[in-house]
């Protein structure tokens, strides 16, 4: 009874604060030094109790700071998280930068010269000029087939024995055999071969034209020559589009995968139960998770930027500022996904599987990172277009290779912001201080 009295005596007016979340009062928090024990018995104890203080907004910053500090400490002390957050991005940068290349350079091609006439040699001389092909002249077709089986060569160009005879007659045939197992590579090699071989006709036509009288030349139709100009990727290397795309992968990895696992671990280990029964608000728990992993994601971004700039020398035409800004937006999206997954699964194994299947794999497969979305069936295009990663991928490649294309920047940033807001709101909605 004494206490209830003291509550009123000790701190009049503290009650209303309590209900209104005590934003006004900077309360005297209730931790009492032992020397105050006697005072408390006379009412001091009640004095510090009952204030809405520790739970109010006034406590927001200190609580958030403390939780964030805890989170960062845990992160720094957990080798597994560091491995995923820093080690794996490094490995990925190196692999994608050095290891993965779709470009064809110096593909070995066997030339079976069954007709060693000067005309035939002249024809295949075109192959030597191509930087993409390195021809090897072989005599017997039989040996060549074996080379092909062993994948020593990617293709065979066969010049049949009647080639020059037929050519003189006006129509000769050349055979090109490509090893089709690696389809994309084969496709490229085939078109290079076709180009190199057909150039002979062009050269021939040109020679002919020079020899012919002008009148005769005028009577014939000319030839169409394609002149290619590769915009945004003058070097035409896949590194230029893989490395910027890697930023998306790494952000997804840290934001969604790692965060989902770390948050699920708290559910699994029961550390949240004690935390819940304290003045902590769900917002603070979520924010404290977001901040360190946000920083870690930015660190990954930094590594990518540095590697792209200095290691792989990918040019950046757009604004770095916009790149940073949009990366932050996407990181928030990824964090939202990660937090959402962990709050729903509350189990590390499940969370990691779901995060992998719903964010990382799609970011790898369906965002246009490796495979161009324009080439896939409509249904898969739709799925791709529903993914936030797709928009970030497009944006980041544009910023890197094309420059500040404002309509695209505005559109994609708006989409990413919408995703970020709704996913984080959803994560907040499912994170309640409840066990059931």
């Amino acid at each position, binding site marked *: 009874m004494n206490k209830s009295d003291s509550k009123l005596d000790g701190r009049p007016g503290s009650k209303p604060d309590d209900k209104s979340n005590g934003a006004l009062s900077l309360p005297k928090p209730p931790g009492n030094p032992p020397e105050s024990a006697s005072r408390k018995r006379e009412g001091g104890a009640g004095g510090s109790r009952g204030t809405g203080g520790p739970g109010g907004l006034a406590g927001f910053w200190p609580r958030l700071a403390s939780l964030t500090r805890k989170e960062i400490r845990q992160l720094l002390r957990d080798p597994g998280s560091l491995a995923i957050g820093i080690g794996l991005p490094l490995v990925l940068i190196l692999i994608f930068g050095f290891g993965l290349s779709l470009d064809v350079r110096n593909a070995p091609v066997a030339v079976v010269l069954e007709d060693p006439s000067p005309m035939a040699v002249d024809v295949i001389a075109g192959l030597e000029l191509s930087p993409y092909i390195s021809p090897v002249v072989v005599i017997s077709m039989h040996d060549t087939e074996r080379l092909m089986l062993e994948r020593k060569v990617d293709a065979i160009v066969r010049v049949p024995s009647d080639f020059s005879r037929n050519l003189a007659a006006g129509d000769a045939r050349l055979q090109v055999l490509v090893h089709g197992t690696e389809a994309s590579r084969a496709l490229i090699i085939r078109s290079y071969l076709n180009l190199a071989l057909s150039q002979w006709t062009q050269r021939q036509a040109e020679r002919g034209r020079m020899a012919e009288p002008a009148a005769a030349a005028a009577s014939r139709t000319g030839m169409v020559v394609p002149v290619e100009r590769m915009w945004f990727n003058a070097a035409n290397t896949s590194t230029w589009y893989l490395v910027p795309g890697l930023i998306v992968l790494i952000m997804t990895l840290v934001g969604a995968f790692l965060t989902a696992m770390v948050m699920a*671990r708290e559910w699994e280990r029961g550390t949240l139960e004690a935390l819940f029964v304290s003045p902590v608000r769900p917002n603070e728990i979520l924010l404290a998770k977001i901040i360190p992993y946000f920083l870690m994601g930015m660190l990954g971004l930094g590594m990518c930027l540095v590697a792209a700039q200095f290691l792989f020398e990918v040019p950046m035409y757009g604004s770095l500022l916009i790149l940073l800004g949009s990366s932050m937006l996407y990181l928030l999206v990824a964090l939202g996904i990660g937090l959402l997954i962990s709050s729903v699964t509350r189990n590390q194994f499940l969370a990691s599987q779901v995060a992998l299947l719903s964010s990382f794999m799609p970011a790898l497969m369906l965002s246009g990172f490796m495979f161009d979305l324009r080439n896939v069936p409509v249904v898969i295009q739709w799925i791709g277009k529903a993914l936030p990663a797709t928009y970030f991928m497009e944006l980041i490649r544009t910023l890197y290779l094309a420059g500040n294309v404002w309509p695209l920047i505005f559109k994609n940033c708006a989409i990413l912001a919408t995703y970020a807001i709704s996913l984080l709101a959803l994560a907040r909605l499912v994170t309640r201080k409840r066990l059931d």
Partner: protein
Amino acid sequence: MLDFLRRIASLCRKELLAIFKDPANRVILIVPSLVESFLFGYAATYDLTNVPYALLDQSGGIHAAELVARLDGSGVFHRAATLRTQKEIADVIDAGKALVVVQIGQRFEQQLNEGGMAPVQLILDARNSNTAGSAAAYIGGIIEGYNATLQSGAAPPLPQITVESRAWYNPNLETRWNLLPGLIASLSMIQTLMLSALSVARERENGTFDQLLVTPFSPMEVMIGKAIPSIMIGLTQSTIVMMVALFWFRIPMAGSLVTLYTGLTLFTVASVGLGLSISAVSANMQQAMLYTFMLIMPLILLSGLATPVRNMPEFLQIATLINPLRFAIDLVQRVYLEGVGLLTVIHDLIPLLIISAITLPLAAWLFRHRLL
């Protein structure tokens, strides 16, 4: 011997029951590999199917119209925009509306009629250099064809070379044909590695591993009892992906099933050995999961699934020698598409054997000697 087999059988039965009684496991073991094989089958393509292009025809002549008609009729290119001025090019490319702008100059008609060279400008968006390169090559092919028609009417005829190209093992050069056989090995590896890596860690976390260690089972028996179910599941998953490739995507199988399964079994044994070793060194499930994940990414990226091993720099090519998936993908593609026999792929089988021979005994040894 009979006793030994009976004990192994009982361990396997327990393992399979424990795996499949968990509804989450049932879903995780079947659904992802099915979904992924469909998704990859459709999405992972470097083939051009639908390329938006923009036309800037400044000549307005008949030849230009003929050429454009060929482009439009290719089924691959569709016109997203028709431009009037040079300035518009940047807009359509920047915004990604067109992958390529075909610019036909004012003098195009004249040049052709004079019998000269008539350049056509192809401005390509090479943010994805791969698609850009393919598109350029494709257009080059179309122009080539057009040139041939132009010349055929001419007298006297210029000598013509017809290039007959044929692709071995993949006549239409579809990316899918090389990817799906690769997936037969890689999708199942993800799962078997994860499954075997978690198997001991999970038992350790649940305390059942202690219960198992006080029984008369020897570490070797425990290891075999863990390995066989994982191998069975891995092979089942390979089979699922193979069915999808064979019956849904209708990629014909050139080789023999016996050869294929011999290779696959060896590969699965090797990856289970890898998984069990991870399992034995990790203290809990979280660690096992992180280690596996750390391992899977490089294994898949450096396997030749996405990009050819030969395109990698020398040091990475050497690093792939310890990657079982590298050998398995080569093996499956060869057997499936090329139809080779066991002897031809012996250079794939031997490394797999070596990897298994190292990882499996290592795992068995670690079971007993890492008991904290």
